[in-house]
């Protein structure tokens, strides 16, 4: 046994090695990404690991591996599970032979997400077990148990950590790493693997018949625990259970749920020993609804009567507040303090030298009255530059654009989408836009990497997750194959070419694609690419503010003159947009 201080996702990855896992797939998404990053970067791997192009692809790959009898892990963020929902729902019918664990990392408070959905609802929907860890140690232990549980029940298991598990740290007790010795072998069984109506009706019935066994086995795992102390009780799940432990007094009973669905008889026995129970969980009232279903005349407090919030994340202080509002006295009080007002905000920002910034700048110049549907990636920060009008989900820039065109909206539409997002779910939208003759311009922001989530490789990168060379996909060829006639590739650091390409696109009918291709400035720096820095000649600078409005963190304004700070990466775009010619390479005259 070894004790280490680990990030939640590192502990989860280690749990997979202890299982051991045979097959790993997933699509990057905060807060889930580090699990595959760890597993794909270890030397001497006894298992297969890949970054897939999207979550549906990842899950279907993992499902097939599990059908072949090996232990498969599939990771994604909560919204990725929407993309993978199609195979998820029916995988519960077919079941698995090897263990299949689907890790869907939820993000209460939407720290880096477009919504706050609760993955536990998907497990309930699909009728599969869901494990919801309260601590990093539990996350580590659960993932290990999840593979065995999945095999025993013949069902996929949903593992649902949240941001405060994935991106928290703690001292974790680790077990020994085992070598994977399994090799997949498919045993033909059409009644299980071909879900035609005649088969699927039977499979559905079998899934429903399994449910009592599922509840019983989950109860035996030990992740659901109860301690009776008095006439009042708190019932909690996930990380919220850890917050409750921090503030619960000695005389209040506590029931903690880590495995869903809960054995309702066991839950009912506990609830009915009390006069009042308070349910504490983040996001949806999944546990609360079960508690209310068995409570009889016991008073239940929670979200449904307004004591606890449906949205956001909890904390010990928030839990103490909810307890007080129900007449439960927390063991600890928290001071009422507020932040110092009027501090200028420091939100995340596109890096100095980021290739996205000149693209947004040029789009706004050329398509002055345009509408700018965009997508999910670092470039969503183009919002700060007024160049992002819509973002809904992965791949929805092109589709939202074509929908606007056919709604009768007459302004020019310019959609922006990153390379990884285009490959994830953008291609179908492009094909559809061409097929249905939408007049619009699509700009693919191609920085050859999935940057936002931590620079994972994708099919444009030329490397697999494990670093093996792979022939990079040609975005030009993909676009042409979708039927796009106008496909231009430009260097976004070259403002003249970029502007010309956009103007050309503006004049043409149909769907036009411009591929703005340049390395992510962070990966370029890591690869040792150094461009000379730029500086402002204060004599020539007129203080017009054009470079300031460009929004680069390397450009500052002091005493009505611009200046360039040490963040400059030498992209030279500011020098090209300065009307006075006041920005030059360091050392140049």
């Amino acid at each position, binding site marked *: 046994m070894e004790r280490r201080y680990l990030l939640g996702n590192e502990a989860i990855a280690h749990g997979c090695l202890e299982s051991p896992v045979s097959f790993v797939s997933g699509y990057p998404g905060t807060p889930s990404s*580090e699990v595959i990053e760890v597993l794909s970067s270890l030397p001497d791997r006894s298992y297969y690991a890949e970054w897939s192009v999207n979550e549906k692809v990842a899950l279907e790959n993992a499902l097939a591996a599990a059908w072949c009898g090996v232990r498969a892990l599939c990771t994604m963020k909560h919204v990725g599970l929407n993309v993978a929902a199609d195979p998820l729902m029916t995988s519960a019918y077919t079941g698995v032979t090897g263990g299949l664990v689907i890790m869907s990392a939820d993000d209460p408070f939407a720290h880096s997400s477009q919504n706050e959905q609760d993955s536990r609802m998907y497990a309930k929907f699909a009728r599969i077990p869901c494990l919801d860890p309260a601590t990093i140690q539990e996350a580590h232990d659960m993932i290990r148990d999840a593979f065995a549980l999945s095999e025993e029940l013949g069902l996929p298991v949903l593992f649902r950590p949240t941001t405060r598990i994935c991106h928290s*740290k703690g001292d974790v007790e680790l077990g020994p790493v085992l070598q994977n010795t399994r090799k997949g072998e498919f045993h033909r069984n059409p009644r299980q693997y071909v879900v035609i109506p005649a088969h699927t009706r039977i499979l559905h019935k079998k899934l429903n018949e399994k449910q009592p066994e599922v509840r019983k086995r989950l109860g035996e795992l030990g992740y659901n625990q109860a301690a009776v102390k008095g006439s009042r009780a708190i019932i909690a799940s996930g990380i919220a259970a850890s*917050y409750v432990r921090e503030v619960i007094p000695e005389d209040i009973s506590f029931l903690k749920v880590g495995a869903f669905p809960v054995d309702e008889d066991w839950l009912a026995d506990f609830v009915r020993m009390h006069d009042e129970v308070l349910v504490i969980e983040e996001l949806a009232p999944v546990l609360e609804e079960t508690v209310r279903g068995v409570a009889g005349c016991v008073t239940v407090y929670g979200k449904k009567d307004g004591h606890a919030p449906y949205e956001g994340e909890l904390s010990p202080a928030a839990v103490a507040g909810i307890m007080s509002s129900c007449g439960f006295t927390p063991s600890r009080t928290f001071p009422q303090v507020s932040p*110092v007002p009027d501090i200028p905000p420091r939100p995340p920002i596109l890096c100095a030298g980021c290739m996205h910034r000149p693209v947004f700048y040029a789009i706004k110049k050329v398509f002055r009255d345009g509408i700018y549907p965009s997508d999910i990636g670092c470039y969503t920060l183009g919002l700060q530059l007024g160049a992002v009008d819509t973002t809904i989900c992965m791949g929805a820039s092109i589709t939202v654009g074509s929908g606007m065109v056919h709604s009768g909206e007459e302004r020019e539409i310019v959609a922006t989408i990153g390379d990884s997002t285009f490959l994830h779910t953008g291609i179908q939208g492009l094909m559809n836009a061409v097929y249905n003759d939408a007049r619009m311009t699509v700009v693919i922001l191609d920085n050859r990497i999935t940057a936002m989530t931590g620079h994972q490789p994708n099919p444009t990168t030329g490397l697999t997750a494990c670093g093996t060379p792979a022939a990079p996909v040609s975005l030009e060829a993909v676009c042409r194959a979708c039927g796009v006639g106008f496909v231009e590739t430009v260097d976004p650091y070259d403002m003249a070419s970029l502007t010309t390409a956009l103007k050309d696109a503006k004049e043409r009918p149909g769907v036009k694609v411009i591929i703005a291709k340049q390395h992510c400035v962070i990966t370029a720096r890591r690869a040792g690419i150094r461009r000379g820095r730029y500086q402002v000649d204060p004599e020539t600078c007129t203080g017009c503010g054009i470079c300031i409005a460009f929004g680069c963190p390397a450009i500052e304004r002091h005493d009505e003159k611009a200046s360039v700070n040490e963040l400059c990466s030498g992209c030279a775009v500011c020098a090209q947009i300065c009307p006075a010619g006041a920005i030059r390479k360091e050392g140049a005259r």
Partner: protein
Amino acid sequence: MTGGYDIMIVGIGGQGTILASNILGEACLIEKRTVRGAETHGMAQRGGSVESHVRVDGKYGPLIAPGTADLLIAFDMLEALRYSHYLKDGGMMVVNRRMVIPTSVFVQKLPLPSEEEIISQLAEKDLCLIDADTVAREAGSPLSANVVMLGAASHRMPLAADSLLTAIQRLVPPNTVVINTRAFELGRAAGQTC
């Protein structure tokens, strides 16, 4: 009360707050103590304001509540001010005497408090100002400013300096061990006077 010692480390994405929190966590392991932490990952790191929570002897969740931190280590003065309400009454703040002006100030023409104004606001609490960038250069690399700050703050931590130093030597890149050892020691000396 939790009985633990809660440390907030705040700064700007890329300044090394995560390495600093790893060092504290490793030092806890060396002393066979429990520890919990939480930090900012993902896009928020792109030049944004970041925070790491480290709970020495922590047993429950990773989050430190506002108004309860024992120690605040800030790599930037403006970030020190932004998170100053996390400090408990009687808590201490160790702050790097530098300020990166947020781009929002230039682009949106937002008012920015002067350095003197910020220092006078920070000084309402128990404040230790350290010129960590200068000390780091003296140690051999400006990149060691985060370790300088840990050295300066080490006097207030319930962790032995030896444990911290061992943790640093385990976690920094091998070719920077000498520089970071010096950074810790110089930082510790600089923090002595607070």
